[in-house]
């Protein structure tokens, strides 16, 4: 590429070298150091450089992404056809079809067949008689398949969008809504033997989102498992759909985590880590990024499940390095959830200052688009941490902050309502009565713990165990372990 002739093209190579050498991008500096580039040209040269890089990467990555290779061959078929080389074009299309079948890309397969149809019908090659009905049959099947695939993919995406909008079902109303929605789609959701990879994938995903929202952990686990097992049936799909596979494993882990099955969780996490160590070298940045998100998410969950906060500190230090370096393109949402979980681990490990540091990353700003419940719990945990530090002045500031946030929340769950009520009364509570008050709050919160919908907040912030620890003057970790021990027996 660098050898391309012409003046303008040399300039984009110069620009590339400059950007490559420097850590920061300063237009002033570029114009000074490369006098050949005029200010008015810069944006054009930039755009050109961007395109050239993408083009060269496209060529470079051809062998890695079967789809790109197949599309190149399809273009070749078009070019050959335009030049009047019909049989060479048909040969090329055959290669496209082979790849498309291997990676289950039906739209690509259809394109190839459609074009083949066009060539065969415009240039009678003698084979038309047999080929015509074959091609028509094939393309009809694919189009039917695609119609179903599209419906299922729409369903999966819509359910996911419902999840983004409404989150986990929090009321009977939510549950009814979801069940009505899915029963309307009953016909679509029937599995048949003829379903292909993508149809089954979207079907399982739909169920995964559905049961996840309903907090039906058993079915959530079943469909996540089906999702992952699909790759055993279609081993060729592991490469083109790596991120989908990883996301499937993530959902299995999530289902096991929320239902508290720590043994199975450990096994599944090892599966994810095994995958990581086997494939790390061949993964794209995106795939690595996804893999890191889930290994850290579930590494954290493992700490919570096994209450090994102290032992987990080195692990979260690695994670905070990764977050600080900005190695991966993780969006704000993702980062905030990590901050919260890191804070929870530090709290459990009794490193309150560090805990507060991470909570401040969340609470010092206003994020209207970000999940309310995490923002709310971050403020509650911040209050608790300051209380534990005995910093009375800051506690009263935190009380006001939590109060303000809770009063602005659109919808509060039972746990949040009780905490809200409790906080309102804090200024009136005398120090000697604190224990008494904690006992009262605990008994009110315990009622929620038994409720499927209301128990979710306890997964990240076990307030009951916290109250136990204050009531009995023991560390929180012990309180959690104690409580779990009781619940096990």
């Amino acid at each position, binding site marked *: 590429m660098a050898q391309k002739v012409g003046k303008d093209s040399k300039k984009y190579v110069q620009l590339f070298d400059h950007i490559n050498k420097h850590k920061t991008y300063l237009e002033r500096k570029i114009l000074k150091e490369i006098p050949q580039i005029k200010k008015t040209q810069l944006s054009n040269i930039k755009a050109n450089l961007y395109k050239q890089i993408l*083009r060269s990467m496209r060529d470079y990555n051809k062998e890695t992404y079967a789809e*790109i290779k197949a599309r190149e061959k399809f*273009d070749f078929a078009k070019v050959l056809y*335009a030049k009047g080389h019909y049989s060479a074009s048909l040969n090329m299309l055959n290669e496209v079809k082979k790849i498309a079948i291997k990676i289950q890309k039906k739209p690509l397969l259809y394109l190839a067949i459609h074009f083949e149809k066009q060539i065969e*019908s415009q240039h009678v090659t*003698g084979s038309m008689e047999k080929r015509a009905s074959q091609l028509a049959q094939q393309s009809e099947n694919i189009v039917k398949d695609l119609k179903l695939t599209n419906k299922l993919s729409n369903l999966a995406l819509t359910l*996911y969008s419902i999840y*983004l909008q409404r989150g986990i079902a929090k009321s009977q109303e939510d549950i009814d809504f979801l069940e009505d929605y899915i029963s309307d789609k009953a016909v679509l959701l029937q599995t048949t033997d003829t379903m292909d990879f993508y149809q089954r994938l979207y079907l399982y995903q739909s169920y995964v989102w559905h049961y996840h929202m309903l907090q039906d952990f058993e079915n959530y686990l079943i469909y996540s498992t089906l999702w992952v097992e699909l790759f055993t049936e279609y081993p060729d799909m592991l490469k083109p759909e790596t991120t989908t596979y990883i996301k499937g494993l993530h959902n299995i882990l999530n289902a096991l985590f929320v239902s508290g099955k720590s043994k199975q969780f450990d096994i599944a996490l090892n599966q994810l880590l095994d995958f990581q160590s086997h494939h790390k070298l061949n993964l794209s940045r*995106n795939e690595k990024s996804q893999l890191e998100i889930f290994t850290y998410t579930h590494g954290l969950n493992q700490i919570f499940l096994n209450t090994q906060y102290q032992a987990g500190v080195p692990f979260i230090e690695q994670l905070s390095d990764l977050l600080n370096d900005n190695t991966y393109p993780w969006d704000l949402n993702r980062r905030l959830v990590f901050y919260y979980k890191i804070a929870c681990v530090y709290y459990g490990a009794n490193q309150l200052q560090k805990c507060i540091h991470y909570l401040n990353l969340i609470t010092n700003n206003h994020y209207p688009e970000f999940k309310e419940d995490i923002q709310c719990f971050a403020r509650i945990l911040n209050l608790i941490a300051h209380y534990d530090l005995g910093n009375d002045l800051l506690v009263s500031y935190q009380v006001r902050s939590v109060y303000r946030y809770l009063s602005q929340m659109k919808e509060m769950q039972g746990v949040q309502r009780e905490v809200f009520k409790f906080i309102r009364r804090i200024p009136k509570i005398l120090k000697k009565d604190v224990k008494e008050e904690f006992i009262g709050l605990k008994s009110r919160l315990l009622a929620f713990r038994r409720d499927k919908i209301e128990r979710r907040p306890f997964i990240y912030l076990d307030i009951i165990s916290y109250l136990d620890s204050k009531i009995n003057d023991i560390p929180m970790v012990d309180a959690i372990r104690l409580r779990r021990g009781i619940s096990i027996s």
Partner: protein
Amino acid sequence: MPISQSLQVYQLVKSLNQSEKRNFRLHAGRIRDSEEMLYIKLFDILEGQKKFNDEEVLNKMDGISATQYSNVKRHLYSQLLKSLRHLYREKKADIKIREYIDMATILYNKGLYMEALKILDKAKKISFRNHTDFNSLTIIEIEKTIQSRHITRTNTASIEALVEQASNISQSVYNRASLSNLKVLLHRYYIKKGHVTTAEEENELDDFFYSSLNRGIPPDEMGMVEKVNLYQCYVWYHYIRGDFENCYSYAIKWIKLLENSKEMMERDVDLYMRGFHYVLTSAFNTRNLEGYKIHLEKFENFRNSYYSSFNANSKIFSFLFVHTGRLNLHFFQGTFESGVKIIPRTLSRIKRYKDNLDEHKIMILYFKIAYMYLGNGNYKKSNHHLLNIINLTNKSLRTDIQIYARLMHLIVHYEMGSWDILPYLLKRYNAFLSSQTATNKMVSIGLELFKKLHSTPVLERKQVMKEYLDKFIELKKQKYTQKAFLYLDIIPWLQSKQSDKSIGQIIKEANNK
């Protein structure tokens, strides 16, 4: 690479025009690798060859091993295609769209999601404008993936829009695929059976056609692309039925629709020219001389003003359709004398495009050329071109034309007075005819005529011909047998024998009536 693939490289090199060659050299200049010198050398050698000669190439590539040679060939082939693809990007929207899709895939895999979405959005706009639904579907699938995996904001409006778009496109893809399937099946029907020849066949065709159409959406809800497809189906349907009046009016609708959207017409000039081809064919078959002349002229004008922008394929199509159109105009008007003057040009085009034309198309052209020479009394030349058809090894290709060619061959031999060969030919052609499943009354009566002529004294032949002339006139009036005369009208020839006028004169007189 086996020899046949060497030929493939050679043909590709030979099909490049000047600017494409220049672009290839520029492209090659950019890539520096060990085989570079070799593949450019191979390119130069092939470019210099007038006729492909693998041995000579190998000699000039001095000392290269067989494996290396085949690697270099493969390398050259793919580099040629790459440079062409690069060059066509600006001309062919769908190549550009696929480039954008690839770029988005790369960006996505680098974790640059917003950048990927931006490029996809550009691609989608082009794809919508060009009605390339399958590309749109692919783009939307990737957008769905990115939206669902990486964009975790709570604003879901874009997801809903995507779902909506996906449903619409999926529906339109379905419609287009059904129509294009119908088209291909009609085409197959025609190739297999030709025009319908019995009422039974016509009923069968009607059932098939209307039941397929009814499954689709109503025409008033169709987009442009679907409508063109629909008109094409109707054209084929009426064409097979031999209803050329209706065929004509749907072909007119087809070209009008494209004329209303210049963008679409320019994007698919082949489709537009194909429309003209059917307008001309059906005008010819319905003896609509005025309609024929108007559209041929319009077609010629279009070709003249767009020819420089045609790709090789469009050039080939335009040659086929326009030359056929010109030949038919001479048949139409009985102007064989001026007709034979355009034949050298047609023959030189056939020679130029012989690698790109299939046997079927060449055969039809030879048939017309033979008929032109016959009409003008150049029997030897006519004979020469007929032999090209009769000696074809593929006997199952358009057997109707092959049969007509044989009948014309008898006429030519009769005119040349080659009496001794006639019994032999008659025997062979009778055998050929009886080996066909489809019966053809016009031809069987034609063969009968020559058999009779052969055993009739010279002076009584005129009378025999008169007898058969009446038979043929009767046959031409009947619904399912009249189509045979569209290809080879034996009547003007017989009439010319009755009146000592030329075929051209007979036709001109008939036109003036």
